[in-house]
């Protein structure tokens, strides 16, 4: 849902520096968790123990344990890999697909452009989450299909921005002067149109990663993502949902981690956006 924000005007005040630094720090910690989860906890996320089931948060188990006695903190740490892979993967694919479709239809013959634009508008009229659901209905649940579904769902938004940006750049002064200098058409596209279209899309993608993570958690909460016992954040949330009154910590902490992650990504994304268009 928050991809729409990136197309808004930047907030007049650049975000306070400390906020941005804190957000960057959070993302650094997350990246570390993806690369070397072992650093954070020695416990194996899949190690179950009947005796340790449903323990409240303690020094031994920071986030407590779940019904199978597994350490929730370890599962959240090892889960970072799943969620960030989906978030970054889906946004990158959506950006690439959107850029290609958007730029090509922006430069193509108006008839082609109107057809492509019509298709993009139809896809855009569909909410991203429902589009992802339908794609999963086709490719079946699983980690890979999450990435495929979310990139297909997000691509139309990127395509629309790329197309409108291409129209703007096509008419910009520096393209006219490049033409009058005698720069060839394909070279103009590569050297001026694509780089200047990529800028806003890249910023949009950073915020898109946050949306993809939230949507991925939603989809796996519904059982459409990676199958249990994978420590994906959405799966952990759904494991805890029927134990809310007895063990709320199973649901509380993964949700907090998702929120903090997405907030950090949005803060960094907006900071990049304000710096790039200053």
């Amino acid at each position: 849902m928050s991809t729409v924000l990136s197309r808004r005007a930047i907030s007049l005040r650049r975000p306070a520096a400390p906020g941005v630094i804190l957000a960057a720090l959070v993302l650094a910690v997350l990246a570390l968790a993806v690369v070397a989860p072992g650093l954070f906890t020695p416990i194996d996320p899949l190690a179950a123990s009947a005796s340790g089931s449903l323990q409240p948060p303690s020094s031994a188990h920071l986030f407590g344990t779940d019904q199978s006695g597994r350490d929730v903190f370890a599962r959240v740490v090892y889960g970072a890999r799943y969620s960030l892979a989906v978030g970054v993967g889906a946004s990158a694919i959506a950006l690439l697909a959107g850029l290609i479709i958007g730029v090509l239809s922006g430069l193509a013959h108006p008839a082609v452009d109107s057809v492509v634009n019509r298709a993009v508008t139809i896809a855009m009229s569909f909410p991203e989450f429902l589009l992802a659901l339908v794609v999963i209905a086709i490719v079946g649940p699983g980690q890979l299909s999450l990435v495929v579904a979310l990139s297909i769902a997000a691509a139309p938004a990127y395509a629309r921005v790329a197309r409108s940006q291409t129209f703007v750049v096509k008419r910009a002064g520096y393209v006219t002067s490049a033409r009058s200098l005698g720069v060839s058409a394909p070279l103009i596209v590569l050297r001026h149109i694509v780089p200047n279209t990529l800028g806003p899309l890249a910023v949009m993608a950073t915020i898109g990663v946050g949306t993809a993570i939230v949507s991925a958690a939603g989809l796996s909460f519904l059982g459409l993502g990676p199958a249990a016992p994978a420590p994906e954040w959405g799966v952990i949330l759904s494991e805890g949902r029927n134990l809310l009154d007895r063990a709320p910590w199973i649901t509380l902490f993964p949700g907090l981690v998702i929120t903090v992650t997405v907030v950090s990504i949005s803060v960094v994304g907006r900071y990049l956006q304000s710096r790039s268009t200053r």
Partner: protein
Amino acid sequence: MTLTPQHRGRRAAIAVVRALGGVIIAVWGAATVGFFALKAIPGDPVDVMLGVHAQVSESVKDQIREDWGLTEPLVVQYLSYLARLVRGDLGTSYQLREPVASVLTAQLPATLSLAGLAILIALVLSLTGALVIRRPWARSLASAAELVLVSSPTFWVGLMLITVFSFNLGWFPVAGSGDFRALVLPAVTLALPLTGIISQVLRQGLDAASGQPFVLTARARGLDHTQLITRHTLRHAAADSVTLTGYLVGSLVGGAVLIETVFGRAGIGRVALRAIIDRDLPVVLGVIVLGALTFAVINLLVDLAYTRLDPRQRLIEGTA
């Protein structure tokens, strides 16, 4: 520059025909892509119908395939589907063995009341926020709150609200779709991210508008802060928000799927999800077609509202 009324009438007629054509193409496009994509799904629909451990012989399964016309060539199935679609018949659900149209429309009121209340709460919250919040510290606090609201997963927020308000405080029933009290928590959960987005867009719209030269002129006439907003900048910010509302209505249905699952409410979202999990293709296709129709109409309304709000659009009604 001004157009004669008769000239303007003809242009309006063309615009309406073009718009309706757009809706029809959108629905046809969604139906076609949906149909062939769903037919590409592996797995035998009869297995889907019978479920697990049905001690049924192959001959009976062949009989069922006959009845549902699954043995005819793909194109014939597609054309008969289109023919029925035109008459508003969305086929029969594999699982529920009921016409898809009646299955979906039966669930409409529950989702509509949830979405309606959610939009109402979101609009009221964001409008009061935009009017009231003025001091810099309040603005940064508001923008931080909006960011958190938008970033937190709706279903997790729902679970947390249940934990606090149903289990601990017991103010609201845990869930179900019975009386009004059961609607409060789900509607608030759905409304929170909406409030985040709308107030963010509204505030950024107000900030952008207040930087415009005509605001300087208005202030030079002696208008105060509230008059400036109500008479000038809110209308500009509203123009932006209207285009956003079209997008938000769409995201409401997406959100409904999650909220209805978390709160155990009946509704279109639950039916769509169950159909997807059970691979009940006719219902999934019905949801796609109904969705395409609804969203195409909503976008049409939003475009009309936008041109109504911004007179500069009226003359140049051409394509984007």
